[in-house]
C-alpha cells in the first residue's frame, strides 16, 4: 500500500492537523535535550577554539536547538508534510539569501568599517 507522504501520521481527512494525542514524556525529553544543547553552547564559549570555529560550533548547536523547538514544541512535525516542506524551503531560502554580505565583512576587516577606530576624541583637535 502506498503511503501518502503529504499527510502527517495522525491527520485524518477533514480534521485539523496536530491532534495532541501523543505522550507528554516525549516533550519532556525534548525539553531536557534542548537544555543540554544550550549548556553545551556555554561550554563551547569557554573552549580554546578560535572565533571562527567557535562560531561554527555555536551555529550548529543553535540550529539543532531551533530545529527541535520547531519540530516538537511548535508541532511542525505533526503538520502535513507539504506544509512543513513549504515553510522550510521558503524560510531557508530567505535566510540563505541574506548572507551575501559576509565577503564584504572580511574585506572591511582589512580596510576597517566606518566609525570602527578606538579613538574617542574628535580627530580635528588642534
Amino acid at each position, binding site marked *: 500500500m502506498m503511503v501518502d507522504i503529504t499527510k502527517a501520521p495522525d491527520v485524518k481527512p477533514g480534521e485539523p492537523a496536530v491532534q495532541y494525542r501523543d505522550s507528554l514524556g516525549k516533550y519532556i525529553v525534548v525539553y531536557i535535550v534542548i537544555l543540554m544543547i544550550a549548556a553545551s553552547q556555554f561550554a563551547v564559549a569557554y573552549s580554546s577554539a578560535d572565533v571562527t570555529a567557535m562560531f561554527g560550533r555555536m551555529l550548529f548547536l543553535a540550529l539543532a536547538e531551533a530545529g527541535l523547538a520547531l519540530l516538537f514544541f511548535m508541532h511542525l512535525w505533526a503538520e502535513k508534510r507539504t506544509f512543513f516542506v513549504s515553510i522550510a524551503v521558503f524560510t531557508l531560502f530567505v*535566510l540563505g539569501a541574506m548572507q551575501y554580505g559576509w565577503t564584504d565583512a572580511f574585506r572591511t*576587516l582589512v580596510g*576597517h568599517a566606518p566609525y570602527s577606530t578606538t579613538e574617542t576624541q574628535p580627530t580635528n583637535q588642534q
Partner: protein
Amino acid sequence: MSQADIAMHGAGQHGPGVMAEPAFSVPSKKMAMWLFIIADSATFAACLVAYGFLRNATPNWPTPFAFSPSIINAMVMTFILITSSLFMLLGVRAAKAFDKTAAFRWTMLTALMGLAFAGLHLREWMGMIDEGVRMFSNPWGSSLFGASFFAVTGLHLSHVVGGVVALIVVGIRYKGGRYNADDLEVLGLYWHFVDLVWMFVVPSIYLLNVKK
C-alpha cells in the same frame, strides 16, 4: 442555492465545490501566525547578520561579558525562557484536552516566566548603562557595540513583553470563554518563536564576546 453555497459545497451533480478543505489542513489563524513567524524570523535574521557583519568587520570589538554576572545571567535567562516554552506547551495540551483550569494556570505561569526574563534583562541593561555603555560609546572599544547590543536585545525584549501582554489577555479571555484552545495554540506558536530567537541571540551577542 446561493453562489457561496455552490462554491463551498458544490452544485450536486457538478461534483465537489471550488472551496474544498483549507490547504495543508491548517486553520487560517494558524496559517497567519506561521506567515508572521516567517516574516519576523527574517527581521531577526537581518539584525543578527548585520550585527555579525559589524563584529567581523571591526578589529576592536569589545568582549566585556564576564562569567559573573553576565554569563550566569544569560544562563538563567535561557533556562527561564526554555522552561516557559515547556509551560506553554503544557497549557496548549491542557486546552486541547478541554481542561480550562490547567490551561489557564500554565498560561499564567508562562507569562510569569516571561516577566522574570524581562526583569533580568532590564537589570542587565541598567548594569551596562552604569558601566558607561551608551548607544554610540562605551569604555571598551568600538562605538558600534552599544547600538548593536541594545538594538538586537531590545528588539527581542519588546517581543517578550508583547508576548507576556498577549498571554495575559488571551489567557483571561480563554478562561472567560471568549477564546478557545485554537487561539491558545496560535499564541503558543508565537511564544515558542520568541524562545527560538533567543537561542540565536545568546551565542551571537553574549557567548562570542565573553571576557577571557
